């Protein structure tokens, strides 16, 4: 039994036909070609499939597409204006936080959510926020550096305004 759902993804409304067992990750990757959300474990343990659903980061592999009906979704592809980088993306690139890059989209989105909510996080808060995003390459050191740098940069930008 297929279902019709409506999703707003990166500001664009989509009518989508989905199966009851289809996940949000399936819809994003297979139907909308948004392959920046990664399949790493299929059970919500690695965080590579993270997207922002109605303002909160979620594991899209654990979210049924039908559950997301009517929601607003932001993916890595929509985190910055075309041709531009969000300060978190910039910080990840410049501070060496990216190695194989497979965990990066999820890490960037979780970091963006954290800094949206808490512009001056303590180290403990950063570590906790990212504890659901596994990375096998970096040892997290440069990731944490990038998050701190992004926080400073965003605060400076706020200050200017």
């Amino acid at each position, binding site marked *: 039994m297929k279902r019709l759902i409506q999703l707003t993804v990166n500001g664009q409304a989509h009518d989508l036909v989905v199966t009851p067992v289809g996940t949000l990750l399936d819809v994003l*990757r297979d139907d909308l*070609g*948004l*392959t*920046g*959300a*990664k*399949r*790493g*474990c*299929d*059970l*919500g*343990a*690695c965080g*590579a499939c993270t997207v922002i659903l109605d303002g909160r980061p979620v594991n899209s592999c654990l979210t049924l597409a039908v559950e997301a009906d009517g929601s607003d979704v932001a*993916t*890595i*592809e929509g*985190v*910055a204006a075309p041709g531009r*980088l969000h300060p978190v*993306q*910039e910080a*990840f*690139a*410049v*501070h*060496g936080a*990216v*190695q*194989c*890059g*497979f*965990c*990066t*989209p999820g890490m*960037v989105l979780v970091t963006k959510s954290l800094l949206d909510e808490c512009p001056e996080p303590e180290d403990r808060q*950063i*570590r*906790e926020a*990212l*504890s*659901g*995003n*596994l*990375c*096998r*390459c*970096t*040892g*997290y*050191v*440069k*990731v*944490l550096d990038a998050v701190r740098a992004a926080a400073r940069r965003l605060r400076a930008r706020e200050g200017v305004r």
Partner: protein
Amino acid sequence: MNKERFAVVGQPLPKIDAWSKVTGQTRYADDLVLPRMAFGRLLRSPHSHAWIRRIDTTRARALPGVYAVITGADLPPVKFGILPVSQDEEALCREKVRLVGDPVAAVAAVDEETAERASELIDVEYETLPPLMSIHDSLAHPEVRIHEYGDGPNIHKLVALQFGDVDAAFAKADLVREDVFYFEGNTHLPMEQHAAVAAWGPDGKLTLWSSTQTPHYVHRLLTKILDVPGAHLRVIATPVGGGFGGKLDPFAHEIAACRLSQITGRPVKIALTREEVFYVHRGRHPVLMWLKTGFTRDGDITGSHIRTWLDGGAYGSYGVASTFYTGVINPVTYKMPVYKFEGARIFTNKPPCGPKRGHGTPQPRFALECQLDKAAEQLGLDPADMRRRIAVEPFTKTANHLTVTTTGLVECIDKVVESSGWRDKRERFGARSAGARKKGIGIAASAYMTGAGTAIYWNSMPHSGVVVRADRSGGVSVLCGATDIGQGSDSILAYLVAEGLGIDPKDIRVHASDTDLTPVDLGSYSSRVTLMCGMAAIQAANRLRTAIFEAVAKKLEVPPGALAARDRKVGVPDDWDKAVPFAQAVELGEAMHGVLAFAGSYAPPKRAGKYKGGGVGPSPCYSYSAAVVELTVDEETGEIHLDDIWIGHDVGRALNPLLVEGQVEGSVYMGIGEALMEEQVFRKGLHKTPSMLDYKSPTTLEIPDIRTYLVETDDPEGPFGAKEAGQGPLLPVIPAIANAVYHAVGVRIDEVPITPDKVLRGLELKRQSKPARIGPDRLPVMQWKEPLVVESAFGQPAEAVVLRPFADPTPRA
């Protein structure tokens, strides 16, 4: 060392692929979609060991949406393996399965769900055989045979090498220690699950896109496995989402996708599930070790003898190399005048083990470093001072004929000792600390190879090749078979060529790992890529520069030797106003020489020891590392909390310190996981933890601050002096943790991982005044073969620079 003379080398630049990775634009294998693409699925054995009596695919074929179903009968009847000496695998098993997860059939269908449903409709009749699940099992039951080949019943490989007289060495020692250690197996756990897309064209030519670390070996083996000419095959390695050695074999899903594409006339994708990745494995071997070493009262080693038993799993894979690596790298770190090594790899009915970061060396490194710690205590020596004293000398040979060039080990030790406050903490911590939370500090050191000195198959061709081309647009492309697995090899290629041509890395496009377009590179393994591709890239860039300089020199009417290339210009440094913009310089070059495309080739110096087995271990140069770990052990819960890690790493030269630090930190992280939590273990043939939820790996909450100190020794063998960074720094971390735990609570855990239950058991033994040691106490009964006895080459001088096969005649500046 004068960093000023470089424009790009030594700069902490972002990786050239960072922008596409932070925006989610990088296309990994599972992101590829082709028109009319079918989806494939493998059916895997539910038995550890069984004969296949019958396979019936009728019901699967009848399912709507199924395009094709294949079994082993649909593939050429050949066995294959990554090493020429271990041809024991089949993509789809025909007669026998040897582990839970062995593939027996494959389906292509309209979508993944249909393919999976169809695979469940394949009827397979098995006749089960007794499963052999451990080294002890396999040796105790020679009547049950996993394979018919090898060095004995269920013995894949036996190695016995002796360099000098160990008995005489032990006789003159003041202290001889014999210790037994066990290192549990663990797996790579790359974030990206393996995936492959195959498209067999109507012209009979096949293209395979795959998340592989070695497109060349896959290409080479597919010609045999599929029985098609190599000229008609193209293998493209997609950006690899983490490898660590786990994507270095040809895999069943790649082969099945190719055959299914041929049969269906459609592109076919097969993406593994996380559970399948755990069973495909090829990761860290469980190794049981016995180590006997003689010491003088000053701490010098008189001689060492190690025996290793590797639990290989069901197939050969890289196992013969892994077996050698449990022995041959040990003498590279410390002065070890006499050495004996006996190794055995045993087949068991479990996922095959193979290379994982450090390939075969973390296990004996753990054993040796823990034994040194015990010896230092008995001799009343400081463990850091002792290591410093016995550090190997530069430009000498080891007992087993390996050539050490530069070594920064002493400097690495000094850095971590000074920065960690070692001496003070050694005094203050341990039993002296109050309460149930005991602090400890431990040290260990290591060495690792910068690229294997020999290829997997014997040949005299380059190990790595690079083509650099430029045209009148001013654009430069670099073509190289190397595979970027996240370590940054594409970026290193861009930096080195930019350095040579005086342009910006941004001006360069790197086209990598495509067997149709790029010169062969053997693959991303053994920490070989920066050195080998780097040397080839420098040679190619220099040749292009020479051609351009010749043309610019003619125009400016100066000798070519007077020219320099920098800031996107070519000119005479003292008359820079007349310098020619790079694009124009290329135009002049193109007008003088025609198309500008130059190749560079690299093969390591031929230094293999002249004895059978001397081909494993030689490397152009070795990196060195030392680590100090500070931790807290909770005596009530047995939990270990890492407080701080200091790591010194001799990288020769940091071509990009940001990337080198990243490699060091990643290695330290992986060592922490192996030391404290990761294990690949089985119950009745089934993986106990085949998911990312159950297989525990460190998160941001478990990783302490890692303080990295890079030591530069400017090795004559490396590109601008660089050595490896991606594997070596893992090695000292694990024993440093074990030694710190002992310092904290006085319990020796001679077994990895060091889990809270083992700490508590050790503390209980201590309370009962028994030897507070947790570890193996039983060794297999085994008949070792007579060792090959070779004279020790220890201490012989090594020539600083030897001739490399494809090097240009002019010496390096």
